[in-house]
């Protein structure tokens, strides 16, 4: 009975989830390519220097946007659609309209990135895509979010659990953040300091209130689902949720330490960052005390291995983030490449790893096609290796950079830049490894969705009917 109802739900989601996962994969490859180009330009300034549209400032920004909105946005839709429908025990609604909105979303990002490469950026962090495309992005997002909420409203059990809190609130937090920032930056531009505070606040909050809750919600879902046990100390989860909701948007302003803003802004940011230890401790207690009860099973299940890598990375990197928010440390690292460490640990080491795990969990269920274990394993090890050396290079390189930049007596080009150059070369290598790893991921995904490209359209029904329970 129940298997059947889950199958019906999966079938109702097949088209939309496959579409979002497939396009997320393509954006991931685009972002990987751009990441490699921007890393290569740091080691060799003449790399591709004859192409004006590939100058460093454009490629770097395009990479961040492709990663967050292309890969992040699409995979968030896929994961949220599926988990919310599954937990609601209800079929997904508005299939065709969601698919259409998904097309608009991806089309808008394509034009947005072309706009960035053409030099039509706005100056606001993570809102760099040209102003014209934001209404399209916002409307398509709202349509998708609306139908996910409709699905959630028709749930069987009126009680909600942790994955639902995180996924649905992130669904609502993104438009809230966007409207506040867009109003304060473009519609009624705030004057003076407020504008730069707002711009920076949006860019950081986007990661904390949009990407992070989705990854946490996914982990809260997949850990009990695969391990077959309830989350340990689950009573803490609600506390962790509200702590993130209340503290995260305040904590991000610690990045303004030493900036030309009233002193209380970075001071509050630092305090709230320290207070972020609460939700970090809660989430990692929940995840790890559940997972380590049955660690061999975690190790043997590839999706869960990805997720636990992500949650461990979340714990470690968030505590490191707290240390770097302390004024004494921030003074040294403020203007170093440590910022790349923060961005990459959050979007690669934490968010992406959990999404990879989720995709490997979801895809076999909705397409009925298993993904080869060797390919998944290759993807895991290359990703883990790539992320680790990337983060270590940025962390150690960032500290070196910060400490050396504090000494005005040093010659900039010959002492400071030359001593961080090796770290740039390591990141370049890491991006190559990650690029291959992501190529394998995308091939895995596309093979699962379209096992036989030429027979896909004719044998669609056969593929769905031969459902295999994992």
């Amino acid at each position: 009975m129940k298997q059947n109802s889950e199958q019906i739900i999966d079938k109702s989601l097949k088209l939309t989830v496959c579409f979002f996962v497939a396009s997320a994969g393509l954006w991931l490859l685009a972002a990987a390519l751009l990441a490699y180009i921007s890393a290569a330009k740091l080691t060799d300034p003449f790399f591709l220097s004859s192409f004006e549209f590939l100058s460093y400032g454009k490629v770097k920004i395009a990479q961040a946007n492709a990663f967050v909105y292309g890969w992040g946005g699409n995979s968030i839709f896929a994961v949220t659609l599926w988990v919310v429908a599954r937990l609601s025990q209800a079929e997904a609604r508005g299939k065709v309209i969601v698919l259409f909105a998904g097309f608009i979303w991806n089309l808008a990002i394509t034009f947005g990135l072309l706009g960035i490469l053409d030099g039509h950026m706005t100056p606001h962090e993570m809102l760099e895509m040209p102003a014209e495309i934001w209404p399209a992005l916002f409307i398509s997002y709202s349509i998708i979010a609306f139908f996910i909420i409709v699905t959630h409203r028709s749930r069987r059990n009126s009680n909600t659990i942790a994955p639902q809190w995180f996924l649905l609130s992130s669904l609502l937090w993104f438009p809230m953040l966007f409207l506040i920032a867009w109003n304060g930056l473009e519609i009624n531009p705030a004057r003076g300091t407020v504008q730069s505070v707002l711009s920076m606040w949006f860019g950081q909050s986007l990661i904390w209130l949009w990407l992070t809750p989705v990854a946490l919600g996914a982990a809260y879902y997949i850990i009990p689902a695969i391990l077959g046990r309830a989350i340990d100390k689950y009573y803490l989860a609600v506390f962790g949720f509200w702590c993130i909701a209340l503290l995260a948007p305040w904590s991000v302003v610690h990045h303004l330490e030493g900036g030309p803003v009233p002193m209380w802004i970075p001071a509050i940011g630092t305090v709230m960052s320290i207070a972020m230890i609460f939700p970090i401790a809660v989430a990692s207690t929940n995840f790890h005390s559940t997972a380590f009860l049955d660690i061999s099973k975690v190790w043997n299940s590839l999706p869960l291995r990805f997720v636990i890598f992500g949650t461990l990375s979340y714990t470690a990197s968030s505590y490191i983030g707290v240390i770097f928010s302390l004024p004494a440390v921030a003074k040294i690292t403020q203007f170093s490449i440590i910022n790349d460490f923060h961005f990459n640990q959050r979007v690669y080491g934490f968010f992406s790893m959990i999404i990879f795990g989720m995709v490997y969990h979801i895809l076999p269920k909705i397409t009925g096609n298993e993904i080869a274990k060797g390919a998944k394993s290759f993807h895991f090890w290359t990703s883990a290796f790539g992320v680790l050396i990337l983060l270590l290079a940025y962390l150690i390189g960032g500290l070196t950079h910060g400490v050396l930049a504090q000494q005005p007596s040093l010659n900039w080009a010959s002492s400071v830049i030359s001593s961080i150059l090796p770290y740039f070369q390591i990141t370049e290598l890491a991006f190559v490894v990650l690029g291959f790893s992501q190529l394998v991921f995308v091939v895995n995904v596309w093979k699962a969705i379209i096992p036989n490209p030429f027979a896909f359209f004719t044998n669609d029904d056969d593929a769905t009917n031969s459902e295999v329970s994992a």
Partner: protein
Amino acid sequence: MTKDTTNNHQPSSMSDHDMVEIHSKLNIEKHPPTKGFLVAPLVFVFVFGCLIFVCSIQLAHSTNQFQLHPPTDIVVLTEEEKETARLDRKVASGKKVFGLRCASCHQANGLGIQGQYPPLAGSKWVTSDPALISKIILKGLKGEIIVKGEVYGASAAVNMAAVPITDREIANVTTYVRTAWGNAASEITENEVSLFRAESEDQVEQWTGTQLVDMFPSVFSN
């Protein structure tokens, strides 16, 4: 009933239906029944208490009382330093007035032009009695005078009636010329200038050199 069948089918994983049921129940019960007390909540309460303490200290020390501007370093000046700073400001202001109103004739170096405009540097007309220089500026001067042994004023006169200048500006500019270019005379205050203005109220025309020599015999006696 469905719960059992699924659990038998897949003892290793949890269906979504069960997940919602179990966790909803956990959320209502808060914690599983245990003997004694739970260690984890106590640890959390202790750690969070410490964190709140640290955060409050940090907030109290680094928010600058939620002021808009950062604190300026508070410098405590002695009376002497304050006096020097005040005099420096006064002289700087007087220098501006001098550049605007006086330097075109008396020159920026205070040496004047030989035979035409008398020098101010080293002139006892400037450095002697505060009343003398103040009154000249208040009313002007015409006719021949002798400065540092040379005759001036045959062709030029200064008509101060046409120049709007306040007592404060006079005090500043006289203080400047009395201390610039090697002059080392005393400061002139605004109140003194007001007093001199009142004293010279009866004088309608510009002063003449002989008039001033009569008024200040002590200056010109030697």
